[in-house]
């Protein structure tokens, strides 16, 4: 059985990218400004990570040119949801491994008393 860390996806397993997918998984779509504010990153940094995710097919982005300022809306794809679920599952398994009791903590069975022989 492979260690769950081997199932972590490099496209997903990055702070901003994981945050983007997690945020988008709960909504229909979010705009660039909202993602930037929620994840506490800069325009350039977020733009770079969104490009990575889009090239991997995990999100789609559309530009809305209505109004004075155009807005970029971002939406998670089905592939993105699957990738996120796999990442979450792998992380859960890693947590389970870390939190499992070690040998030193596993209670030893109490030895039964035997008559001493000298």
């Amino acid at each position, binding site marked *: 059985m492979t260690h769950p860390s081997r199932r972590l996806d490099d496209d997903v397993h990055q702070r901003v990218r994981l945050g983007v997918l997690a945020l988008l*998984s709960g909504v229909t*779509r979010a705009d660039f*400004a*909202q993602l930037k504010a929620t994840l506490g990153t800069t325009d350039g940094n977020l733009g770079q990570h969104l490009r990575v995710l889009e090239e991997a097919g995990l999100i789609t982005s559309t530009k809305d040119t209505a109004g004075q300022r155009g*807005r970029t809306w971002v939406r998670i794809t089905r592939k993105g949801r699957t990738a996120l679920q796999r990442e979450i599952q792998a992380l859960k398994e890693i947590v389970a491994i870390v939190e499992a009791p070690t040998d030193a903590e596993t209670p030893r069975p109490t030895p039964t008393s035997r008559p001493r022989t000298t």
Partner: protein
Amino acid sequence: MGRRRLATVWFPLSVFGLIYLGMAPLALVVHRNHLAPYFLVTLISASFLTARHYRRRGDSDGIETAVWPWLATSIAMTVGGGVASVTGFRLHSLFLNSTGPFLVVTAFFLAFSAIARSTFLLIDALIMAAVCAAATPIANGDNRVATEAIGFAFVLLASARLQHQAATGLN
């Protein structure tokens, strides 16, 4: 149901609370078995208002949540309530005719609370069930429906206010 979607549930709760508030006097005036036109008009209006609210909120917040779950649910609840009412009428069951529709809504809220793991919605469902139980002894069907409608209106509007306050704390 995402946390974001739960945070905006106060609006459809408010709308449905007002619909029940309007239903109460109408049940006494036009008779409880003639409320179908009222529900048709209010359902269409409520759907339009909810869709517009979510669209506007999405534009201002930069986060859009889907409207269709609310629309589908409100349609399903209304149709289910109508079926219960008509079935009760045909079977000459005052309970099914007068309380059945409200129990359908209660069941939906119970299901929501489990899916969304929402204590708010669970409490709403329990109070709704209590309203139905408290109204059961009322012998007159129209009076029973009006009482249940008032009770449901109170629950929905109070819940909407509390959830709006809680949601404001999320931002």
